[in-house]
């Protein structure tokens, strides 16, 4: 499990808490950069759009959904592996989960927050967002729960709440460790955060039970969330979107891009926070095997999607298929196939699977492919529905491109803040993987 020798319990605390308690100028520079990029690329164009209206984006009469929606799906997808993987590996008692799950769950939380930002941006008149909740409003409107968009509101709110509770409750014993290692205001804050945790057998016992129940609830929830996101599309009758395969397709794609995201995040944690001792070869190997499995499932579902469109044989579906494979956005489609179906096959080679740099490159390519996939779903379907008089064209405006870039900066900012407030690796779960200290050893 440990590439550089087993640490002692005290070393685990020291190594991991020092990330939180010691902050150098490089950190502030990096945080300043990500915040500036988020401000300039995301918030300023958004404010501009709020003033001039959603016409500032490239969406038009025939393509009423654009990159905001594709980015929303991408970020929701990226959120999937963290909490889901953590919960599945907790239930199956997999030891390699313990060093990586905290940051993976944080990834879930911040991806969800970024996705929620895209909903706000897409809405246009964001000040009416409360109309989508079942609360009284000045128009006397109540939400229509027959709409898949309302399923989305319920699913994402639930997922955000459950993921926040899941990561917080798993961190409570570590907040107590931060409390004990600090003084002054930080100590007072972490006394509150840790609920006065002492680590009694009863507290551990209750947390263990509660945590298992959280995991049991979160697994079907995560599957439902991306199924519901897929139904935003599949419950329409638009050619290219109206597929029964969409729910498993989206869930698989979400876990796939999320797992690739975990590899990227783990690389950064390992490299920049000096966590080589805790995030080792076993984690990379396991994540690599998971990626190759998901890649094969994803490829299979893609073939099925093409087959069902062709086998259906309606002219509308065939036209949508033709436009996707050979139309304006065909290069993006084939780029997606290359990055998500063929490049990951390299992971079959142990030499590549065991190399952090190569796995980082592959994980980034997979997520570029997955971002493209979501864009293609939106950009090649609505502008190509039914009769030629309804045909149109969609290309994102500079506002949309800028907001897309800014979203990555928002995610990075949230993650950088997270590593200073929560131990990036679970102290007590890493200790569980160590051999207990005995008198005779």
């Amino acid at each position, binding site marked *: 499990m440990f590439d550089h020798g087993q640490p002692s*319990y*005290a070393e685990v*605390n020291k190594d991991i808490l020092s990330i939180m308690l010691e902050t150098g100028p490089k950190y502030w520079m990096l945080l300043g950069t990500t915040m500036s990029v988020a401000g300039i690329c995301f918030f300023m164009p958004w404010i501009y759009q709020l003033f001039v209206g959603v016409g500032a984006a490239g969406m038009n009469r025939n393509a009423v959904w654009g990159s905001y929606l594709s980015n929303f799906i991408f970020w929701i997808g990226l959120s999937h592996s963290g909490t889901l993987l953590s919960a599945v590996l907790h239930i199956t008692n997999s030891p390699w989960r313990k060093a990586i799950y905290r940051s993976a769950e944080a990834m879930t939380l911040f991806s969800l927050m970024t996705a929620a930002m895209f909903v706000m941006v897409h809405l246009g008149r964001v000040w009416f967002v409360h109309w989508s909740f*079942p609360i009284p409003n000045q128009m*006397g*409107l*109540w*939400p*229509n*729960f*027959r*709409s898949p968009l*309302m*399923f989305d509101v*319920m*699913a994402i*709110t*639930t997922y955000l*709440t*459950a993921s926040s*509770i899941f990561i917080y*409750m798993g961190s409570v*014993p570590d907040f*107590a*460790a931060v409390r*004990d290692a600090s003084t002054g205001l930080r100590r007072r804050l972490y*006394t*509150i955060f840790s*609920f*006065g945790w*002492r*680590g*009694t*057998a*009863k*507290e*551990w*016992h*209750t*947390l*263990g*039970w*509660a945590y298992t*129940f*959280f995991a049991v*609830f*979160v697994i*079907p*929830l995560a599957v*439902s969330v991306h199924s*519901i996101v897929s139904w935003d599309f599949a419950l329409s009758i638009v050619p290219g979107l109206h597929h029964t395969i969409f729910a498993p397709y989206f869930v698989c794609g979400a876990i796939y891009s999320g797992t690739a995201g975990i590899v990227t995040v783990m690389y950064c944690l390992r490299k920049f926070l000096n966590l080589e001792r805790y995030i080792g070869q076993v984690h990379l190997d396991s994540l690599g095997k998971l990626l190759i499995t998901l890649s094969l499932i994803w490829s299979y579902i893609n073939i099925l999607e093409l087959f069902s469109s062709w086998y259906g044989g309606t002219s509308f579906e065939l036209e949508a298929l033709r436009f996707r494979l050979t139309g304006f956005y065909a290069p993006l489609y084939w780029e997606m196939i290359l990055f998500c179906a063929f490049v990951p096959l390299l992971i079959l080679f142990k030499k590549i699977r065991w190399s952090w740099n190569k796995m980082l490159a592959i994980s980034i390519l997979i997520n570029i492919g997955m971002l493209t996939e979501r864009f293609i779903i939106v950009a090649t379907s609505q502008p190509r529905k039914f009769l030629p008089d309804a045909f149109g064209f969609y290309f994102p405006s500079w506002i949309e491109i800028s907001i897309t870039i800014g979203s990555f900066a928002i995610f990075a900012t949230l993650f950088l803040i997270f590593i200073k407030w929560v131990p990036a690796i679970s*102290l*007590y*779960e890493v*200790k*569980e993987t160590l051999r*207990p*200290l*005995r*008198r005779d050893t």
Partner: protein
Amino acid sequence: MAIMGAFAYEEDFLAAAKNLKASGFDEISLLSPLPLEEAQKVLGLGKSPVRYFSLAGAIIGAISGFAMAVATALVFILPTGGRAIIAIPPYLIITYEMTILMGVLFTLLGFHFVSGLPAWHDKPYLSSASIDRFVVVVENAAAEQVARAEAIIRDAGAEEIRHVEEDR
């Protein structure tokens, strides 16, 4: 009066806990930097009542989720192509999500209720228990029991023993 004994080795800590239990000390707390199944067994902790909270939450969530979907449809009637106003299949999705949401929230409530947390008032504690020490705490020990408890803890190999006045 509480007596605390800190141990460097898990096996000594568990031996002390077992001996204290066998000697009739019932009010003991076992503090550790990681969850120890063996320590939970010593205290006889079986299935946690948290699971009843989870079940209750899930049931309440299911009922309230379905009721919410039906109620909103009835207060704002939106006829669409002759379709049912109370449409069961889509409402089951709302029911499903609310089942999970309330299940999670009630599990959280159950955790706090069963564990007794938050507990910010002072209780016998050693900060090394969050690092690498295993601590046995004999709580509410009567004056005549103190020496016996201390002897058991010392015999098991405690490296530090403290007496603490408890905050009641």
